């Protein structure tokens, strides 16, 4: 049944593109895309979500292109940099025309270095450190960055005009970088900021929350962390009940999945988001992605899957363009990628000289009884923010 539905959707896509049968007599040329993903290890949750979005994108790319096809070869990097480097080398030697990177700046950094040395184009949606683009690699591209997350959160927080904000930040690279940027932005806006860094191994957040409750007394608690940390922090806050008005977080927080799994913790919590929930996708590409994703994985599109979907679509476009221009085999893919200018579920995608996407910016979504309402920026809002609003 699923296969039949997928086949129908694929056929419909091909028809929509107006190209079905145009080159039916030519055997399509297939290119291999290599991918290293943390399918096991500490980042397995992210790696598996990335893999799902990538697989849907490959299906869609193949459906709309009669002349060229792509297949993806995935290697589990086990959430470690050394395995990621070895995966890149193996994928390059087995003929991959480009590499899709995994998750975490500390892993993507050495892996993209290795890819650059091998002359392979490397794209990622899972590494936001500024150091990655500062290297000036000609083969490195990414669709999201720390600046985009920082902009989205800082816009919301400054609009709310709190007197003070306490930031609870993991010492991992990306959350620490975001916390440092927000500290700077909010302090410049006249807001008192206190940052509490924590070791990722921490399980009991009550001592931190108690410090916030008794010493900082902020209006807003901001979490720059990951899913397991969010649960621990909000749970500790529910126990100690600090006198705050709002709890804000970052990636993978304002998602239907978080509400489904932790409904008692998510009420009124705000996090970065692309889309409201129930999902309202306006573009044809987004609607097809949402439909295929649901068919393949029996769930609504996820935050991380959306990121990997977009990066894979962008890469496919580049590969097809380079193949058409006849430059793919001679290393022309990176030049073609630099010409990218397309709309996506994340907005407009372009790459600057460092390979970064300068247009990346996010909305902020608030959990409301199982729905996610976009509350910031005003231009993207689908509703007013509940402020003060807490899970308890």
């Amino acid at each position, binding site marked *: 049944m699923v296969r039949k539905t997928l086949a129908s959707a694929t056929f419909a896509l091909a028809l929509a593109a107006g190209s079905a049968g145009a080159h039916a007599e030519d055997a399509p040329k297939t290119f291999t895309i290599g991918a290293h993903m943390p399918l096991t290890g500490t980042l397995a949750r992210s790696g598996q979500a990335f893999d799902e979005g990538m697989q849907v994108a490959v299906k869609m790319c193949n459906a709309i292109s009669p002349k060229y096809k792509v297949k993806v070869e995935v290697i589990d990097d086990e959430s470690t940099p050394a395995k990621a480097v070895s995966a890149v080398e193996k994928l390059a030697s087995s003929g991959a025309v480009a590499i899709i990177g995994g998750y975490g700046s500390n892993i993507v950094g050495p892996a993209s270095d290795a890819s650059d040395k091998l002359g392979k184009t490397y794209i990622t949606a899972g590494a936001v450190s500024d150091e990655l683009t500062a290297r000036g690699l000609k083969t490195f591209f990414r669709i999201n960055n720390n600046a985009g997350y920082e902009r989205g959160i800082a816009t919301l927080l400054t609009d709310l005009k709190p007197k003070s904000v306490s930031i609870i930040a993991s010492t991992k690279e990306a959350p620490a970088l975001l916390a440092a940027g927000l500290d700077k932005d909010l302090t410049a806006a006249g807001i008192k900021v206190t940052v509490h860094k924590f070791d990722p191994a921490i*399980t009991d957040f009550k*001592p931190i929350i108690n410090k916030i409750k008794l010493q900082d007394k902020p209006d807003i608690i901001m979490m720059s962390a990951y899913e397991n940390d969010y*649960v621990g922090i909000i749970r500790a806050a529910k126990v100690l009940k600090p006198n705050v008005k709002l709890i804000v977080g970052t990636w993978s927080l304002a998602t239907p999945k978080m509400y489904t799994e932790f409904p008692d913790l998510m009420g009124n919590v705000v996090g970065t988001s692309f889309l409201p929930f129930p999902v309202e996708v306006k573009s044809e590409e987004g609607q097809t992605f949402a439909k295929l994703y649901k068919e393949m994985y029996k769930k609504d599109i996820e935050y991380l899957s959306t990121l990997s979907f977009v990066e894979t679509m962008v890469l496919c476009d580049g590969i097809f363009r380079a193949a058409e221009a006849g430059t793919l085999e001679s290393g022309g893919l990176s030049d073609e990628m630099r010409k990218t200018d397309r709309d996506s579920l994340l907005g407009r995608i372009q790459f600057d000289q460092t390979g970064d996407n300068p247009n990346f910016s996010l909305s902020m979504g608030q959990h409301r009884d199982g729905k996610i309402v976009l509350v910031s920026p005003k231009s993207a809002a689908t509703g007013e923010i509940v402020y003060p609003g807490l899970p308890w």
Partner: protein
Amino acid sequence: MTELVLQALFSGVLIGGVYALVALGLALAFGAMRIINLAHGELVLLAAYMAYLVESRTGLDPYFAIPLALIVVGVASWILFLLVDRIKDHRELNSLILTFAIGIILTNAILLLFASDVRTTSSAFLQDAVSFGDVYAMRGELIAFVLALVLMGVLWWWLKSSWYGRAVRAVSSNRGAAQLMGINPTRIETVSFLVAGALASFAGIALYTMSVVQPATGHALTVKAFIITVLAGVGSIPGVFLGAVLLGLTEALTVTFASSALQELAGMVLFLLVLFFMPNGLFGARARRG
């Protein structure tokens, strides 16, 4: 400031109790067989996932998963023992490698079976706040702490007073002499591993009720349990409790007076200091009891 310190002390003692519960099984196997079971954290994790399974499928409180966890973790422990028992040469070193490998296999099996998502209890009863004056805890934490105390008492009594307990201590002291006294060392070691598995079952369920678990959690649990076992001194049950509470207090006070980023570092510094000044641990060989 008093309120802050009291909460830190209270949280430190509570988390220490749970650390002790996690470490007990490792300490028992280490004490009885001189085997550091590096898959112990994964056994604890397996029990936590049994709690998740029962809670998500039946809606029952996670503690109803105890029988299932005892069976599943018990079988896993038994298989683990059978594999370890096949090692004839350099048992202490080779068992380290073997149990480390089994830990990896278990982690990935859990990943395949339960996916990589973050899991924790959804029980409102266990998540409710309980206050004692100015200090607060989750009900799940208090239950886990009491469970840790009870299990430590039972284990201490078992090792001290029961025939099997005395046999475990005898095999631990001198395997050959114990055999000459009519004790079957293999049977006693099997019992030790099964009891360690039972302790891991309780620890896993307690962990699930008060913290979050995911497949990668197991290794961190093993490291924590190992630190506590060494802090305590080989074979000391009261030492495990005191070592765990000391570690919990050190971590909580570090968060309160310094930075939460230094919490794990403070624990490791404590570990090194104890090793440096008291190489046999806080309750090392001379003071060993139980």
